């Protein structure tokens, strides 16, 4: 069983891919079979992932690879492969579990959509690509799947293609991530140039193993930073985070699966996967590339948390929260807490999918309204959604004890507190934790508490097919905390390969109180600030945010996303617009003139050769033929047709020859 799953690991991504192809090949009126195919593909992938996961439990630090040759050119062979290790197995299980919940939720959420089958085809395609990404044992294979998930993301953000904003958001996402991917690809090329292989693990010859790393030497920093460019693009890190909030134009299950739980985590996963490149030559756990990761992560985490406070769209708040949490994971990786970062990634996958699906349920219940200022009081109409959403909110805020997000956040704080170069990231993250609790409290109050406003008056609870995944994910978010506690840090041990033992005493640590105090402060301040926000009556929207009332300039700065989009519009975009105009002008007048000039030269030459042809060659040929014709006319008169004339001529010829002979002899 063990070796079977290692050699057949490709079957995991193959299932959703096959489902996607099958859905695309059936008629788009067969909605039930499309949904059944997608869910079945996901269930099989989940089963195989569990088999893979179980097989990694046998030994600590389990790692098995299956490499194969893709093609050979000259004496070089390009090899790809799949790897099964705790990182891959944990990601596989998280993606398939969360994915399955979201697939089931989508059946209800998208029930009214006319392109239902296309949606499931794309969703399955995405799932396959994402599963392939986590098990790839070659940076090139990672890159291939990386681009495939990017494509799936593009297709799904622009799923409602008839909306211009969705089309624009899809393009923005694609182009912004492409900027990062260019760096990633350069990193891939550089790595291949130095290490001669792109396989991660290859019996000691892979680029993440001793010999490969030794060949890299000083260039490892640059390779790592180039690969990090790709991670920045995909994981929505500053300065390439601008696409992720706009990606919320896609259907909500897409936001949940791709832009919250799995794909955006790919950047964090990638950094964790190639961590040896980042940490090569580390002095007490610090390298220049990791320092860059830390500062980018801190900037992103704090900035996104600040922006989230001033947003009014339920999904945009969650989107900025995702950006912020991804920044937090990056910080964790940068300071050396790889396991903590990945644990937060896994926990985040569960609770952020839960929150997005909850938001989807709210939007569904409010008939498509996304503005939280128009909601309110929904806890009475949508009890299941409210309860599960509250679990997600607690987990995201980092409430300790029962919610998985609390333990992982605490681990990250732990790791960051002891970062040798600086304590600034640690303090900034503490601020981020408070802000996270604050904006989630604000959202909960606006959406679920107070009196119902415009959009909430005719709200209803979502059907069972949508609430069931919420409940499953909520239980997942709670139960996951059982393997995350410091008393029994099983998941930590599983990921790092260290033995785990049970010790209740470690449960109570200073960091637990720090974390508890910060979250309580955030939630308390939130309730105090927004205590009146949801209580206006008469179904009017809560037009003025309490913060806006207190600090209008600051609020506008945050509500407009710190003017970063506008800054890009003034700098990068206007620059490329200018460059495009310049190129257009050059093309139209300079290059076109050049081409026309050459054309004119050709034309002149053509006129010259035509005259040579007509006056010289044609006339010569005509003369020759006329001469031949005249000669023929003269000669033909000799042919009288009288055979006796011919005979006479022969006789005279013979006589002449005879006389010549006689004269010569």
């Amino acid at each position, binding site marked *: 069983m063990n070796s079977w799953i290692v050699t057949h690991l490709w079957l995991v991504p193959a299932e959703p891919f096959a489902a996607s192809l099958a859905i695309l090949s059936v008629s788009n009126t067969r909605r039930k079979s499309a949904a059944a195919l997608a869910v079945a593909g996901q269930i099989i992938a989940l089963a195989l992932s569990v088999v893979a996961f179980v097989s990694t439990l046998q030994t600590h630090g389990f790692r098995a690879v299956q490499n194969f040759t893709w093609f050979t050119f000259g004496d070089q062979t390009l090899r790809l492969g799949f790897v099964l290790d705790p990182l891959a197995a944990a990601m596989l299980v998280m993606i398939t579990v969360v994915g399955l919940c979201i697939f089931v939720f989508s059946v209800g959420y998208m029930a009214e959509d006319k392109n239902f089958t296309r949606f499931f085809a794309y969703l399955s395609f995405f799932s396959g690509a994402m599963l392939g990404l986590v098990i790839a044992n070659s940076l090139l294979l990672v890159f291939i799947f990386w681009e495939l998930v990017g494509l799936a993301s593009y297709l799904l953000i622009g799923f409602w293609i008839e909306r211009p904003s969705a089309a624009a958001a899809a393009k923005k996402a694609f182009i912004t991530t492409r900027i990062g991917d260019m760096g990633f690809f350069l990193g891939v090329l550089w790595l291949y140039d130095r290490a001669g292989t792109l396989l991660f693990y290859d019996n000691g010859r892979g680029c993440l193993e001793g010999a490969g790393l030794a060949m890299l030497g000083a260039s490892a920093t640059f390779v790592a930073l180039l690969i990090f460019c790709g991670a920045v693009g995909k994981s929505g890190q500053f300065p390439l985070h601008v696409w992720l909030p706009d990606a919320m134009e896609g259907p909500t299950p897409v936001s949940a699966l791709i832009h919250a739980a799995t794909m955006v985590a790919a950047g964090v996963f990638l950094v964790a996967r190639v961590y040896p490149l980042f940490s090569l030559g580390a002095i007490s756990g610090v390298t220049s590339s990791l320092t860059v990761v830390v500062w980018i992560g801190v900037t992103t985490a704090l900035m996104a948390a600040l922006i989230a406070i001033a947003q009014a769209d339920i999904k945009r708040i969650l989107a900025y929260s995702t950006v912020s949490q991804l920044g937090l994971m990056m910080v964790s990786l940068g300071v050396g807490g790889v396991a903590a970062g990945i644990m937060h990634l896994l926990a985040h996958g569960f609770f952020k999918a839960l929150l997005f699906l909850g938001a989807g349920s709210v939007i569904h219940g409010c008939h498509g309204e996304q503005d939280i200022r128009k909601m309110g009081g929904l806890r009475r109409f949508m009890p299941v959604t409210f309860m599960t959403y509250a679990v997600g909110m607690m987990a995201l805020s980092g409430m300790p004890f029962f919610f998985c997000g609390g333990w992982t956040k605490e681990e990250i704080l732990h790791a960051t507190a002891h970062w040798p170069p600086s304590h600034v990231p640690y303090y900034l993250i503490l601020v981020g934790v408070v802000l996270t609790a604050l904006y989630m409290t604000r959202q909960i109050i606006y959406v679920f508490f107070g009196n119902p406003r415009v959009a909430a008056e005719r709200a209803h609870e979502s059907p069972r097919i949508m609430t069931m995944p919420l409940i499953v994910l909520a239980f997942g978010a709670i139960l996951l905390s059982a393997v995350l506690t410091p008393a029994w840090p099983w998941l930590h041990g599983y990921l790092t390969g260290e033995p785990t033992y049970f010790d209740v005493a470690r449960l109570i640590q200073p960091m637990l109180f720090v974390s508890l105090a910060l979250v309580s402060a955030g939630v308390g301040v939130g309730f105090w600030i927004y205590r009146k926000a949801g209580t206006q009556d008469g179904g009017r929207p809560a037009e003025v945010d309490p913060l806006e009332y207190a600090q209008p300039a600051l609020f506008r700065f945050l509500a407009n996303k710190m003017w970063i989009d506008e800054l890009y519009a003034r700098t990068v975009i206007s620059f490329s617009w200018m460059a495009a105009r310049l190129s257009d002008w050059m093309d139209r007048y300079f290059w076109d003139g050049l081409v026309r000039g050459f054309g004119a030269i050709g034309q002149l030459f053509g006129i010259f050769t035509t005259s040579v042809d007509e006056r010289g060659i044609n006339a010569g040929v005509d003369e020759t033929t006329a001469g031949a014709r005249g000669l023929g006319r003269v*000669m*033909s*008169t*000799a*042919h*009288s*047709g*009288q*055979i*006796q004339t011919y*005979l*006479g001529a022969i*006789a005279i010829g013979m006589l002449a020859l005879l006389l010549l002979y006689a004269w010569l002899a």
Partner: protein
Amino acid sequence: MTPTLQIFLIVSAALFSTGLLAALSRRHAIFILIGIEMMLAAANLNFIAFWRFGPPHQPPTGVMIALFSIAIAAAEAAVGLAMVIAVYRHYHTTNVDQLDQLRG
């Protein structure tokens, strides 16, 4: 007067000239054929004469060639007469002056 080679050659030349004159001057196709036959006879006479007055005790090569030549002349006359008949049927004449279809 003893027969000598010159006498035979003179007779042969006369015969050839007569045949040539006939082939060139007569207008009827059959007479032209007869002239050609006379020229062949002159050639045959030459073969035999050169054999007869050549070195003694030779194999009879001249006579043999003359015999072959006569056989070929017979075949040629048959073909020629057949052509004359075919031409006559087509043009209703055997006057070679009128048979000028190959004029250039």
